[in-house]
């Protein structure tokens, strides 16, 4: 440790790393350790029964199921978005490109009430679907819609630069070797963007699992049917069940951490892949 400063002639290593660690500890680590210690304090059995309650398990299924599905939908549409933004010219492209990030910038509560208004049976889109018996708001479909909304930019924004980076000559080479356009896409383009797609998928998934604000307005929040895990934490809190809330929070925390490691791994893979290739 003492020889750290010998690595570089640049100043400020101790100060910047010290401050970074201090601030990280103060703002992130100490608060998070509260969840961990409170969970440890409650004992294994109490913990296990709290996190495996049927109603809680149902929220996991919905949260993870809908998040997976939403991330998968976003992979498909995100790829299409990235593709048309990189490769085609069409009116309104600049606007589309700028607004893709809207879900990043729009407060989730605003997104929630706006989506609920649109997709309610008497809303502009909901009323179009209602005659066919399709209901979106106030059931798991609503959760899915909200999660698709918030996850879209993650996929578009990871795939877009990678797609833009793909040199045309590779595709020309494939065409020259007799590959059809579809074969070129499947065998050349898709493998090239796969790490980016996976990274985008994982990011959208991680974000969706934790999402609260936009979902609760549109979910309907029926126990066993359309309750998400973060809402379960709130519900537990409102029943003065701190331990239950903390236990579920620790499960989510663990999952967040695992997802993050997965994402970092994927990004490492991506970096290795794309820098070597270039």
């Amino acid at each position, binding site marked *: 440790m003492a020889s750290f400063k010998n690595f570089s*002639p*640049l*100043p*400020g*290593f101790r*100060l*910047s*790393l010290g401050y*970074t*660690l201090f*601030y*990280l500890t103060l*703002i*992130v680590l100490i*608060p998070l350790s*509260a969840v961990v210690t*409170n969970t440890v304090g409650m004992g294994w059995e109490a913990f296990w029964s709290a996190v495996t309650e049927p109603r809680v398990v149902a929220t996991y299924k919905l949260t993870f199921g809908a998040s997976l599905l939403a991330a998968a939908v976003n992979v498909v549409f995100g790829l*299409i*978005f990235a*593709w048309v933004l990189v490769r*085609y010219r*069409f009116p309104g492209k600049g606007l*589309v490109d*700028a*607004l893709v*990030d*809207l879900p*990043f*910038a*729009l*407060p989730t*509560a*605003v*997104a929630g009430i*706006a989506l609920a*208004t*649109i997709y309610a049976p008497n809303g502009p889109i909901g009323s179009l679907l209602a005659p066919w018996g399709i209901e979106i708001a106030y059931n798991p479909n609503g959760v899915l819609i909200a999660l*698709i909304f918030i996850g*879209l*930019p*993650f996929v578009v*924004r*990871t795939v877009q*630069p990678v797609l833009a980076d793909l040199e045309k000559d590779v595709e*020309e080479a494939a065409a*020259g070797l007799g590959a059809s*356009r579809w074969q070129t896409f499947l065998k050349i383009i898709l493998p090239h963007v796969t790490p980016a797609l996976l990274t985008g998928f994982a990011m959208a998934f991680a974000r969706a*699992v*934790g*999402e609260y*604000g936009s979902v609760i307005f549109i979910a309907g929040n029926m126990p066993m049917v359309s309750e998400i*895990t*973060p*809402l379960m*934490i*709130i519900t537990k*809190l409102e029943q003065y069940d701190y331990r239950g809330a903390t236990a579920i929070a620790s499960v*989510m925390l663990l999952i967040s951490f695992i997802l*993050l490691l997965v*994402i970092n791994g994927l990004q490492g893979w991506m970096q290795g892949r794309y820098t070597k290739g270039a």
Partner: protein
Amino acid sequence: MSASIALQPGALARYETPSTSEPAWIKVTLITVALTFFVIFLLFPLGTVFVQALSKGWGVYLSALTSHDALAAIKLTLITAAIAVPLNVVFGVSAAWAIAKFEFPGKRFLITLIDLPFSISPVVSGLIYVLIFGAQGWFGPWLAEHDIKILFAVPGIVLATIFVTFPFVARELIPLMEAQGAEEEEAAVVLGASGWQVFWHTTLPNIKWGLLYGVILCNARAMGEFGAVSVVSGHIRGLTNTMPLHVEILYNEYNYAAAFAVASLLALLAIVTLGLKTLVERQTRKQISESQKPSES
């Protein structure tokens, strides 16, 4: 987590040769799909906010924004962002400096920890502060004894906001500074610049757009955070309601036009954010392409 884009402006033309483009019907289909998705999922919700906000006319709209509680919420939101954003900027710059310019063990793990608040549910982010500062929490009794209010007061809201916006600036700067390397800084040091001079004259000009980008995103999230703040706010009208919470309250009071009016301010903020972001991206792109310009004779 937002990936930065490095599209070359002239990139399009590269794809318009017969061997590497698709039949027109596929193009049209894909564009149609994308545009439909765009309209339904992005444009429509945004439009709805403004349509609903103005559904009762400008008078109701303006009075909703100038009511006492709305003004208090706006003020609180601004104060919160004004504290949280600078703190996270200082942290972000400091973390990026340590991580990008030096080698030390555990660096990747440190980056993962910095990312952590990104993937934590906002609800959990609020809960942790309840567990710490709540009357039943770690410091609760001590704080009560000394009459220091954190939870259900501005400090709690600020802390929760800092937590959820924690990685934004650092996350923009780390890859940027790593890509730029340390050569310019070393050159400045060799030329006799002091630590502060190195940062001010060499590093800052090179990262200013990335920094601004991070600040914009950080600010948007700080002003728009709902879940975490909702847990620690206490919802005291005129005192501890931020704008997103005020939207919820108005919404729950059948005051839809007013709720959407305040929401429209936040949506405007989002639009301004995206506009600035696009501008900044253009600048960053310029900077990157300049620095990467091949050196020919």
